[in-house]
């Protein structure tokens, strides 16, 4: 893992993976998937599990080994987030935002910032949350209203961040705020004076992702907490969001696989009209769609990851495409999975009920389906003669 702008980086000599998909899968099957509905009901991930995840080295996945992390290449990171997403989208969401913060800190953080926070971030003792969204601004960093004003050796931050994944328990916040030179990124300790967080409960999906509203009221941070230059927040946010989008795409592949597994298990034993569900041709059509979409989504995610590992700029569009396809396919598969399970799939506490609610969230976060459609289409129109592009 290098520290170039692209998550993954062009030097492309990834450290040999210390873990592989079989290990990820075994952990998720043992410690995550069986309890994910409990987490969903409790609307939080228990601390002992978060510590177990730390013991696996997954919080520091994108931090190089020499800096205390695991140094995963991007393809392996995608494998990990697929497996965690298969078991629990809320836990995968926590890993996503933490990974975004870890990457930004390592890539753009000042020497003092890295010295102060990177060891804890790499080990998972200090968990991160990405604070971009505001009541009046979604994923567009240029629209943030939160202000940061320089005051001597400090910046003073004021504003409100909304729908912050992991915001209830994170110790370190990556905040995008507006300065006189444009959007700028800052690291803010959640325990600092002037930070107030309010849990957001009963969201439609990823209910255990510990959402919060974060209020910054005259919150002072030192100069070394600035991440990148003043006005560089757009690039920091764009890079972090690209990584987050890749992770969400992987998580959606996991949801697809979970839907397929649940649907196969149910239809092989459930009888209707004197025959097993699996023997109905219309049921087989839905299973076929799930299999095909899972395979295609996984390949698109893998392709984006390979491009990241070589620092290829094409990875940006490839990641948009992977996330668009994987999230819309996961929503479709989850809807079909509920349909195949009938009334039981609608019941509170049934996994497919959770997959359905979680999949809907995936169509909204890290660029909604509509923003993806606009962005991907723009790439197609790039090739037209000037004057015909807009």
């Amino acid at each position: 893992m290098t520290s170039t702008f692209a998550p993954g980086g062009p030097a492309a000599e990834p450290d040999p993976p210390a873990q592989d998909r079989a290990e990820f899968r075994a952990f998720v099957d043992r410690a995550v998937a069986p309890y994910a509905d409990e987490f969903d009901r409790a609307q939080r991930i228990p601390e002992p599990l978060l510590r177990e995840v730390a013991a696996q080295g997954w919080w520091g996945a994108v931090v190089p080994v020499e800096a205390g992390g695991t140094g995963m290449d991007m393809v392996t990171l995608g494998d990990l987030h697929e497996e965690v997403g298969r078991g629990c989208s809320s836990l995968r969401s926590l890993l996503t935002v933490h990974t975004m913060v870890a990457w930004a800190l390592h890539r753009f953080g000042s020497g003092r910032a890295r010295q102060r926070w990177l060891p804890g971030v790499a080990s998972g003792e200090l968990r991160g949350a990405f604070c971009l969204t505001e009541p009046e601004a979604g994923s567009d960093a240029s629209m943030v209203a939160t202000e940061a004003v320089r005051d001597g050796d400090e910046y003073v931050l004021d504003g409100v961040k909304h729908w912050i994944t992991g915001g209830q328990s994170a110790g370190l916040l990556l905040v995008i705020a507006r300065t006189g030179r444009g959007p700028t990124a800052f690291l803010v300790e959640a325990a600092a004076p002037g930070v107030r967080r309010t849990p957001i409960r009963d969201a439609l999906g990823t209910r255990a992702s510990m959402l919060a509203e974060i209020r910054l009221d005259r919150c002072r941070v030192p100069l070394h907490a600035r991440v990148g230059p003043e006005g560089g927040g757009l690039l920091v946010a764009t890079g972090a969001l690209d990584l987050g989008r890749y992770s969400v795409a992987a998580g959606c592949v996991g949801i697809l696989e979970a839907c397929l597994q649940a649907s196969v298990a149910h239809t092989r034993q459930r009888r209707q009209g004197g025959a097993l569900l699996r023997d109905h041709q219309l049921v087989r059509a839905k299973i076929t769609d799930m299999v095909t979409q899972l395979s295609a989504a996984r390949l698109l995610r893998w392709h984006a990851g390979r491009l990241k590992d070589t620092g290829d700029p094409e990875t940006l569009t490839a990641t948009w495409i992977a996330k668009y396809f994987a999230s819309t396919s996961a929503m479709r598969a989850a809807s079909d999975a509920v349909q195949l399970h009938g009334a039981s799939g609608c019941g509170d506490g049934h996994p497919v009920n959770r997959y359905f609610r979680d999949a809907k969230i995936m169509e909204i976060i890290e660029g909604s389906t509509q923003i993806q459609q606009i962005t991907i289409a723009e790439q197609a129109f790039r090739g037209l003669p000037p004057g015909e592009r807009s």
Partner: protein
Amino acid sequence: MPHARTAIRQFILSRFPGVTFDDGEDIFGLGVATSLFAMELVMFVEQHFALQVPNEDLELANFRSVDAMAELVQRQRAAA
């Protein structure tokens, strides 16, 4: 830095075929560039010229024109 300028121009044209611009012209002023394209430019410069753009240079001003990017590459090579 004629080679660097040629490579940068080719990259921009590979994304926006047919666009005409001078090396000193603000490509973001052409109305075709977005934040996504800005990030593509950063990645291209880092990958193609095998360098890491330092934090203090991660400003759009350094990616606004072919000349600005070529100068950035030259500065980084000189500092290496």
